[in-house]
């Protein structure tokens, strides 16, 4: 057969190099409690959790075309589930984080059925309204402090670990673990058969449905999985903060606007984009935060410049110039020199 002189590869030299560097970087990061200071670890934890949120929003908006501005609904929901499950049910905080993910998926089902009736800008507004409904609902629950919020009781905090030092280490590892789980899950999903369908939907819905892809079901699945992992991340965020209130939990600025900024400047619709975007966001924040409101103006300006000059984000620029993929999702056809194996 003539086609035997061609073979299909799903990796590349750049990706193999990236894997090696990635593993080395991970080992260094896992060892952080032994070399980094408390402030550095807190900052890195926050960075990892933002990376998780950004990767999830990117999967949903960049691939499934579900531009939600209401993901704070699931961040806050996850946070509140952590507090409710530990305080009322006496669950161990780790188990509560897992429960938050599960409950996030459950609550997302009726929400999806409702807002999936809306399209485009109406969908975006619908997600925001849902998030406000969540915020107002949780501010009614007086057992969780109502509008002013509540703190995680000392006993529950102690149940994570006895000493503050090991608590901080565990909390750091949890954040790192969440980022790894989310980025790997997004990557493996996009490489799979369903991921191919989702990428097709990203590019052309008409052709996608004409080639056997159930668009509604694929988007629904993505929305539910995203909600679950966003709720898990939310639980971890408030496990770090140890205090929750409706305004902090359902902040559109903190959990959606910054996340969109990260994804847009990094490169929407790519796995690498959110990683680069998170690094840039934190670099800007750490260098400019002292300037107060000017910091937000700089963020806005950066976002506008990137959107105008590099609509595919910084990773889009790099990829187009060097044909680089650190997380190879696609297929490369190669002509074999000799008989193929």
């Amino acid at each position: 057969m003539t086609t035997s002189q061609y073979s299909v590869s799903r990796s590349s030299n750049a990706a193999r190099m990236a894997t090696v560097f990635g593993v080395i970087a991970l080992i260094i990061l896992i060892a952080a409690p032994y070399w980094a200071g408390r402030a550095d670890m807190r900052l890195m934890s926050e960075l990892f959790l933002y990376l998780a949120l950004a990767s999830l929003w990117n999967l949903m908006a960049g691939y499934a075309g579900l531009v939600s501005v209401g993901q704070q609904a699931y961040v806050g929901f996850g946070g509140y589930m952590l507090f409710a499950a530990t305080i009322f049910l006496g669950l161990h905080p780790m188990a509560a984080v897992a429960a938050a993910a599960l409950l996030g998926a459950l609550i997302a089902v009726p929400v999806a059925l409702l807002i999936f009736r809306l399209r485009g800008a109406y969908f975006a507004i619908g997600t925001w309204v849902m998030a406000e409904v969540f915020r107002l609902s949780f501010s009614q629950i007086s057992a969780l402090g109502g509008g002013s919020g509540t703190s995680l009781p000392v006993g529950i905090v102690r149940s994570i670990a006895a000493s503050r030092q090991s608590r901080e280490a565990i909390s750091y590892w949890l954040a790192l673990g969440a980022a790894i789980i989310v980025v790997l899950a997004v990557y493996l999903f996009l490489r799979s058969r369903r991921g191919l369908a989702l990428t097709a939907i990203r590019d052309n819905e008409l052709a996608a449905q004409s080639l056997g892809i159930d668009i509604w079901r694929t988007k629904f699945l993505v929305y539910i999985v995203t909600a679950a992992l966003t709720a898990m991340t939310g639980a971890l965020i408030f496990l770090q903060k140890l205090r929750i209130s409706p305004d902090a939990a359902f902040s559109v600025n903190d959990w959606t606007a910054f996340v969109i900024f990260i994804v847009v400047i990094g490169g929407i619709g790519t796995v690498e984009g959110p990683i680069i975007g998170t690094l840039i966001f934190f670099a800007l924040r750490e260098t400019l935060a002292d300037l107060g409101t000017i910091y937000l103006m700089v963020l806005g300006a950066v976002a506008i410049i990137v959107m105008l000059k590099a609509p595919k984000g910084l990773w889009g620029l790099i990829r187009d110039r060097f044909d680089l993929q650190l997380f190879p999702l696609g297929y490369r056809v190669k002509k074999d020199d000799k008989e193929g194996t």
Partner: protein
Amino acid sequence: MSAEAEMILQLENVQKAFGAVVVADALSYEVQKGEALGVIGPNGAGKTSMFNLITGTLRPDSGRVLYDGNDVTQQSAARRSQSGMARSFQVPQPFSGMTVFENAMVAATQSAGLRGRSAEETCLEVIEQTELMSKANTLAGKLTLLDRKRLELTRALCARPQLLLLDEIAGGLTEAECAALVKTIKNIHASGVSIIWIEHVVHALLAVVDRLIVIDFGKKIAEGEPHAIMQTPEVQEIYLGIEVDA
């Protein structure tokens, strides 16, 4: 019942209008298994809308679409694709951010339901057949119009169809390319695939199809043996009008 089993597709009084514009007017016809049916008609006659009605991207106001003996009128486009319908779009609809090979893989995995190596092998074979191998790793968004049309055919074939719907794929080809295309489609037809082919390049169409129907204003105005149909006065009249556009 036994007669129905012989039919891959039956349209029964299919009606569809957008406001005052009627795109399908009491449209009824049948396609036998293994048959190649040609469709001609002036621009705006409702030919592409007919494909949308058959494949399910458009729902009729009334009437029924039967595929392989089953009523699929209410079935989604995705479902129909999975059960063996594949089409090429007149205005190419590539997955622009994916390579030619990945475009093909979407069809092989999602529509034909193939997995792993067998999906990859199928795509390589079809891409070689449609002469896109040199561009297998090119992003579909960077292809020329001609190659985008080739990609439409490639994807449709990777879906391993039982019923192949081709919407004006010969337009703009050179004589040699057109001859190659006709040969490709003849091969597909010979392998037992039923074909409906909308085409303005009539000599290419006549080289392949067993039967011809003529559509105008959403109505079937003639049907029969291709060469005989081409000689009828109505077709001659309409056809002179087409030639200017084609």
